[in-house]
């Protein structure tokens, strides 16, 4: 059965072992609706989520804090966008941190953007209810919404793995363990 109508029009892309940290995988949901730029290129809304294999989603992990203040000068909560073109947004590169999440066993995980683009919003629901990140990581537990620039539409998924490619990565992991 469909997991829910909200995800019907998204295509899943993956980034695995980000920053060399084993199994810290992310899933980028790319919506099918495109906005075409006047000077070429297009923009599709992307939702940054944790992939199933991420340590935070394994059983036994309890989240103790979610922090969008990623540096002294930068809090993702202060991101403000205006207008159709989302002016004023914090610009993200692939390895820009979105938030830091701590678990009860003392571990700290950084969630990365995985794609270049404008930060539209971060999910404030996981601040008040961190459990939802683990219960519904692919929908209500999303981390952030990002909108790539028109000019970069062609390259946006270059650094990402398709569903098939990611499944190969997963099976390689299984075989090597």
């Amino acid at each position, binding site marked *: *059965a*469909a*997991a*829910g*109508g*909200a995800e*019907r*029009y998204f295509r899943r892309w993956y980034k695995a072992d980000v920053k060399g940290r084993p199994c810290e995988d992310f899933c980028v949901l790319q*919506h099918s*609706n*495109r*906005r*075409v730029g006047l000077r070429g290129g297009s*923009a*599709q*809304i992307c*939702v940054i989520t944790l992939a199933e294999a991420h340590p935070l989603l394994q059983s036994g992990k309890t989240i103790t804090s979610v922090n969008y203040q990623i540096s002294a000068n930068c809090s993702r909560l202060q991101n403000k*966008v*205006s*207008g*159709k073109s*989302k002016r004023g947004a914090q610009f993200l590169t692939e390895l820009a941190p979105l938030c830091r999440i701590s678990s009860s066993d003392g571990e700290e995980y950084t969630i990365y953007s995985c794609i270049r683009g404008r930060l*539209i*919003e971060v*999910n404030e*629901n996981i601040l008040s209810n961190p459990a*939802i990140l683990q219960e*519904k990581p692919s*929908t*209500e537990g*999303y981390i952030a*919404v990002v*909108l790539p620039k028109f000019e970069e539409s062609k390259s946006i998924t270059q650094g990402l793995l398709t569903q098939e490619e990611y499944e190969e990565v997963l099976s390689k992991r299984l075989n090597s363990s």
Partner: protein
Amino acid sequence: MSSLTEKDRPIVQLLLNTGTCPRCILRFCCVGSQTLYRHPHKELVKDLKELVRNKQEKEDTVCFDIVDPPCKRSRLGCTEEGPDDLKHNGVLQQSPLVNDEDTAVENCPVKPCSICLGILQEFCEADFVKKVCQKVLSADYQFTSFVLSVSLPPQLSVREHAAWLLVKQEMGKLGLSLAKDDIVQLKEAYKWIIHPQLSEELGVPADGKSLFEVSMVFAHPETDKECHFLATACPDCFKPAKNKQSVFTRMAVIKALEKIKEEDFLLHFPCPPSPPENLCVALEIQCNNGAVFVAGRYNKYSRNLPQTPWIIDGERKLESSVEELISEHLVAEFKADSFNFSSSGREDVDVRTLGSGRPFAVELVNPHRIHFTAEEMKGLQQTINNSSDKIQVRDLQLVTREAIGRMKEGEEEKTKTYSALIWTDKAIQREDIAFLDDIQELKLDQKTPLRVLHRRPLAVRCRIIHTMKSEYIDEHHFRLHLKTQAGTYIKEFVHGDFGRTKPNIGSLLNRTADILELDVESVDVDWPPAL
């Protein structure tokens, strides 16, 4: 000429000397009698000369003769006295002998007026009127009146200004003043002369409020550069050219003329204005009918039909659209150039519109045909309905432009009712959904849905679900009827849009919900009037 008196003589004489046509002379003498302008050109010339001659008879000067060469004079039995060498004030006024074999002896070429460049001459004649009417009639429009729009080359304002300075100076010598506003406007005089003629030929009256516009554009390339000196004298009046059009627009030139000092003007422009070689030319005569509006309500029965054509990268993704299926026939019947379709809100590609349908209006641009009886509109409605089973229309009728406002009101203010087919992941029993029927005025906070966030600003909308009624189907399905505030995103209310619409059906039922089908049951706007 009852409107011209003795005191006008010096001005008439001055203007006759400077190659001014009789009607422009009347204008500068502030003659307000419309009928006088309609007198034939030849007659006016004769009368003006007579006025001048009556004074000159006392003096020992020649009566001069701008337009009547010797041949014509003898034919008409003109009683002018004086020798044939037509000289006055050093300005040679001799008409060229006829060198155009086609022209009858009677119609020797008239020299173009140095002020109106022929507008109040050639372009008042029956020949021109005939040409215009031929164009209008062959364009095949339905109309009950007309409004004439005349576009004159900007240099006419410059010449007018020069002539005014000349006349003002002359009147100053007599202790009289002449404000520029006192002079009869060229366009106004032109319309006095041409309206009755056009009216007669076309069989309809001239009416400033008419929707049918006949536009004439005149040009005089020979003198186009005459305005250029104004750019150096008043540079701030002339903004850089947009779209490669000339920077010397009529408005800009008029503004500059208001600003420029008399001395500066006279430095750069001959006063009196120099007589031109050629007449103006009339560029394309164009006709345009004001838009008509057709309104109605449409039903949509397809789950695969977009509102507007869906084209990506030049490729059409889905066949046809609501607006095309409705408007194509209207454009054909009204013989319009194009259409603009609008409706009181709209639905997604995969959503049906049932019940009495959604109000819409089609603006038909430049329709050639505008008169339709109620019967004919009914027939048109039937044609549209016969042509497609994807949409149906009702209450098709002509409406005014103002009426469109009522429709758009509906979009923002009026309620809509929907029917949604909902799926749940976890099983439900009747009791689990019964409570929905009791919820009234449920407040939602809806962030801009992810599916439109690429093209809409990020915002939170507060919307109200007025009432709900559930219909249990099975453990994973039920139908929900809702009555909501305008602008509510129904799909997002059902599936929650990643938790960005709160509350949602999922959160209310503590399950994951999806919307399988959505129908619009009613759009609660009571416009257009039901037929």
